[in-house]
């Protein structure tokens, strides 16, 4: 059935949003997308627009909004530089499978292809980093294009879609229509796992003596929280989560082992090397997880569950491949699995965890970044959203924090976008207005997007920023120290006074330079009703361990080198696990 009415192109975009349940847009106006802004008051407050300071942040905010809300995120940019500024954000959403709809204004139809002022071929530019992109040249095509954009973005393996509309097309009038069903003959994201493969997977699980589950982002996207937990508990299999899979399985669950891979737990990397069955659920055997691919899990058969057919067999050859939504696949698989006593395997893991604690915190007077992040955990007990950027602080936030709240960890995994932490915190806060959002920032990344403090102050979002300030591009410095003969080039930073920066943006600024001050400033930040920025002046050359050197295999993981000899303590949840 079709409904019809006469509307402008810009109104059609709005009507499409309403039908798709969109109530939040992040964007920046400009010449070519002005018609979209012209109609905003008409649709307020059904649709709220948040003015950010840079289009990259509009895309990141919409990305994090999508992760936390479970709905598609929407961002606006104008033609030319507005659109190209979105590119990093779109690429980030593409790599992490986030449903994002980017709507860009384009120069008027008559100027397209003539190098008009602020013209960029954004549809062409975004081809490799979108699930789909379209330039809409006819006003009557807008409803179809918008409906398809949301359909493509939110189904199957989610991803970003770009819709580029020339200004004159946004101003023209046409008949609005909305179809009951999207028809795209070339789009086939739906599949159900083959029952034979499911039966085989169950059989492999039953036969295995040393299985591990590696749970990825797909578990969170398809909300298979209960199902993954049922598989682990019913069959008695320990669970490792990839970076993006963190908070897909309860962080303090006795079967939880933490993260694998480049900065994963030592015991996990050894467990994978030792394992006879790796069950990859909603993950893609990325190089940061597998280490040197040819030596990945050499003794193991692999069960791979994923929704994207192109991921099956891309990096590893599975013995059983369950293609389809992992929630549906897990439900079927769970019917067939049986519990099996694997005491020797769990004893082996316990022993490994005792001998290689991986995440002990050294007892020292220096302010260690791990200590800061663990203190935020102690103060919040994980009842918050944690947003991170990329680098050492991100890895420590993955290692020294236990995520018991489902889907509470928001990070840039695939693309590894520094600066994600600031705009993503905005998107997370808008999606979860009643929750606390902690943004754990690197000092380098923070300075890539810190102009958004102005946006945060304007809207009064009570985000807690914790800058893990080591006055360095820490992860790069670590690589220079370890793999480039300690040739430290272009990584030390002369940072501004972040407390004064916060104050200049009308935000409460706090600082901690010594361990004794940490708990107090965290507490003060949590009591403060508005946004807060804390500058944690941490040890400048702390390295992030464990580490798989680039190109090495998982069993070659370097554990925390000096820690065994230093007085140290285990973070509280680990003590529970070890006892």
């Amino acid at each position, binding site marked *: 059935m079709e409904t019809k009415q006469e509307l402008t192109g810009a109104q059609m975009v709005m009507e499409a949003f309403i039908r798709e349940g969109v109530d939040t847009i992040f964007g920046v106006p400009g010449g070519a997308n002005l018609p979209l802004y012209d109609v905003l008051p008409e649709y307020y407050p059904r649709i709220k627009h948040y003015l950010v300071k840079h289009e990259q942040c509009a895309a990141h905010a919409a990305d994090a909004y*999508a992760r936390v*809300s*479970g*709905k*598609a995120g929407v961002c606006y940019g104008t033609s030319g530089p507005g659109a190209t500024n979105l590119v990093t954000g779109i690429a980030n959403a593409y790599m992490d499978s986030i*449903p994002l709809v980017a709507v860009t204004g384009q120069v008027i139809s008559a100027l397209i292809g003539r190098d008009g002022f602020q013209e960029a071929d954004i*549809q*062409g530019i975004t*081809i*490799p980093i979108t*699930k*789909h992109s379209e*330039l809409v040249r006819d006003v009557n095509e807008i409803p179809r294009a918008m409906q398809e954009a949301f*359909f*493509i*973005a*939110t*189904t199957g393996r*989610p991803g970003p879609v770009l819709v580029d509309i020339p200004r004159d097309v946004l101003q023209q009038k046409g008949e609005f229509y909305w179809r009951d069903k999207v*028809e*795209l*003959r*070339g*789009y*086939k994201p*739906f599949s159900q796992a083959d029952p034979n493969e499911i039966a085989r997977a169950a059989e492999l699980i039953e036969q295995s003596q040393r299985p591990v589950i590696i749970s990825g982002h797909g578990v*969170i*996207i*398809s*909300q298979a*929280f*209960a199902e993954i*937990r049922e598989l682990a508990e019913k069959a008695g299999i320990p669970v490792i989560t990839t970076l993006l899979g963190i908070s897909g399985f*309860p962080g303090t669950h006795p079967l939880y082992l933490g993260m694998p891979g480049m900065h994963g737990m030592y015991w996990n990397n050894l467990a994978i090397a030792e394992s006879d069955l790796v069950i990859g659920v909603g993950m893609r055997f990325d190089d940061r997880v597998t280490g040197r691919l040819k030596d990945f899990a050499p003794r193991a058969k692999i069960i791979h569950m994923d929704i*994207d*057919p*192109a991921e099956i*067999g*891309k990096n590893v050859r599975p013995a059983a491949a369950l293609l389809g*939504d992992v929630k*549906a696949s897990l439900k079927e698989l769970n019917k067939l699995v049986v519990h099996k006593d694997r005491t020797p395997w769990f004893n082996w893991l316990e022993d490994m965890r005792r001998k290689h604690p991986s995440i002990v915190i050294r007892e020292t007077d220096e302010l260690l970044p791990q200590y800061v992040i663990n203190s935020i955990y102690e103060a919040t007990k994980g009842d918050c959203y944690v947003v991170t950027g990329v680098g050492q602080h991100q890895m420590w936030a993955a290692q020294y924090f236990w995520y018991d709240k*489902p*889907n509470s960890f928001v990070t840039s995994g695939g693309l590894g976008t520094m600066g994600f932490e600031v705009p993503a915190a905005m998107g997370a806060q808008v999606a979860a207005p009643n929750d606390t959002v902690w943004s754990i920032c690197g000092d380098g990344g923070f300075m890539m997007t810190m102009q958004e403090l102005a946006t945060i102050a304007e809207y009064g979002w009570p985000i807690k920023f914790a800058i893990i300030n080591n006055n360095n591009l820490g992860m790069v410095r670590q690589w220079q120290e370890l793999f480039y003969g300690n040739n430290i080039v272009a990584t030390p930073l002369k940072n501004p006074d972040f407390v004064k920066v916060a104050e200049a943006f009308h935000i409460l600024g706090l600082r901690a330079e010594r361990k004794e001050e940490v708990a107090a400033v965290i507490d003060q930040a949590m009591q403060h009703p508005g946004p807060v920025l804390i500058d944690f002046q941490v040890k400048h050359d702390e390295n992030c361990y464990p580490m798989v050197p680039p190109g090495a295999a998982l069993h070659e993981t370097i554990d925390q080198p000096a820690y065994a000899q230093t007085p140290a303590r285990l973070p509280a949840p680990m003590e529970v696990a070890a006892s």
Partner: protein
Amino acid sequence: MSDGTSGIRPHTIIALVEDRPGVLNRIASKWRQRGFNIESLAVGHSEKPGLSRMTFVVDADTNAEQVVKQLDKLVDVVDIRDISHEDIVAREMALIKIRTDRGSRSQIIDIAELFHADVLDVEPDSIIIEATGDEQKINALVNLLKDYEIIELVRTGRVAMLRGPAVSHPHPEEEDQQYERYPGPHTW
């Protein structure tokens, strides 16, 4: 272009794609980004309105399974399959312009006849012949003509289809499916 006679056969992949602007750009973008080595590409309208059919050949070292899977992810690619191991008819066409003189013209025409190639254009000092066949045949013809001066050579690349009545891209009417959208709020 491989000579098609040596060793491992290249893969022949056929695709049915939407006849829309930018489709070729998208497909080429995947090839480039994923490092697929494309030997030839032929594209034109199909028997279905609004859809074009492509035949492309990727070298034997390329992971054809990934080519098919990656391209199948494109919304504009309606159907795609690797037909290298099926019973197919495959042809390409070549136009060859050769320098001639009174002495060589009849020899070239003799060669053309031997290969069932047509003579399209005859000028006092040049001749254009059209040859159709599989790559080996075209290669053999070109090889023989190397005794003369080839001014210009253009080849279409392979086009292919399955033998027999089978449709290469059967397209059943889509049955109603339950669409699982990106879900809402979260609980364990």
